[in-house]
């Protein structure tokens, strides 16, 4: 259990180092996705299955897809960049790090010392009760944050498209 944590921590730090030192945006994003998946494995090892699933779905899925869409929108020469983005060397580093994580998950499944659903279920119940009990004001504040975020993103994106049409 401890050695799994240290391997995942090493993968996270290595991938994060590559993120902040890489000059190519898409390669940096690939490394950041690997770092997020490794962090999700660490969350799982700490018994926070719900947080681990959310880390992959929302961070690794939604937020990283937003970043990749913006990088694609910013790229002026799509064909030239397409050739460099799909080179083999871009995938080697993240693939090796992801394979290490895959091995860890396979070991966790094979060894069978992962927390079962019987342990996880009361914890999810406790989270839900706390979220809508003592933390209800936080949920309301989060909804008040998300609505201006939605309107702001819509406003910024809409003015860009209208200006692009005018010129």
């Amino acid at each position, binding site marked *: 259990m*401890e050695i799994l*944590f*240290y391997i995942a*921590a090493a993968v*996270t*730090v290595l991938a*994060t*180092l590559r*993120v*902040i030192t890489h000059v190519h*945006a898409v390669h*940096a*994003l690939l490394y*950041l996705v690997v*770092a*997020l998946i490794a*962090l999700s494995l*660490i*969350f799982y*090892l*700490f*018994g*926070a299955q*719900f*947080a681990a699933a*959310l*880390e992959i779905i*929302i*961070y690794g899925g*939604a*937020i990283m897809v*937003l*970043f990749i869409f*913006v*990088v694609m*929108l*910013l790229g002026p020469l799509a064909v030239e960049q397409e050739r460099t983005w799909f080179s083999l060397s871009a995938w080697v580093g993240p693939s090796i790090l992801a394979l290490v994580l895959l091995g860890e998950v396979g070991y966790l499944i094979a060894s069978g010392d992962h927390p079962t659903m019987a342990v996880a279920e009361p*914890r999810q119940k*406790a*989270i839900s009760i*706390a*979220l809508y009990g003592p*933390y209800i004001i*936080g949920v309301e504040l*989060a909804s008040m*944050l*998300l609505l*201006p*975020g*939605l309107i*702001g*993103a819509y*406003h*910024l*994106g809409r*003015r*860009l498209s209208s*200006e*692009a049409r005018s010129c």
Partner: protein
Amino acid sequence: MLSTPALVLAIILFGLGLIGLLSRRNILYMLLSLEIMLNAAALAFIAGGARWGQVDGEIMFLFILTLAAAEVSVALGIVLQLSHRFRTLDADAFCEMRG
């Protein structure tokens, strides 16, 4: 058992994100560094919650996730606007507000 190494890892990740934020001038990489720092804070909360056997850490993680989603959607819209107006992603070029 693993709470101290997890906090050390959170400090390392936060430091890496801070170094990236201070050293890069590309606004997209500055946003990526902000994401790394938010993740380090989330890891510290999860480790603390697991250490004390409470669910508050995971609830704070949910709030951090909400904050990150709202922040990224607005910030990427701003990045698109700036790149459309200034034709660059250099953070030093956006000095119209004389900040």
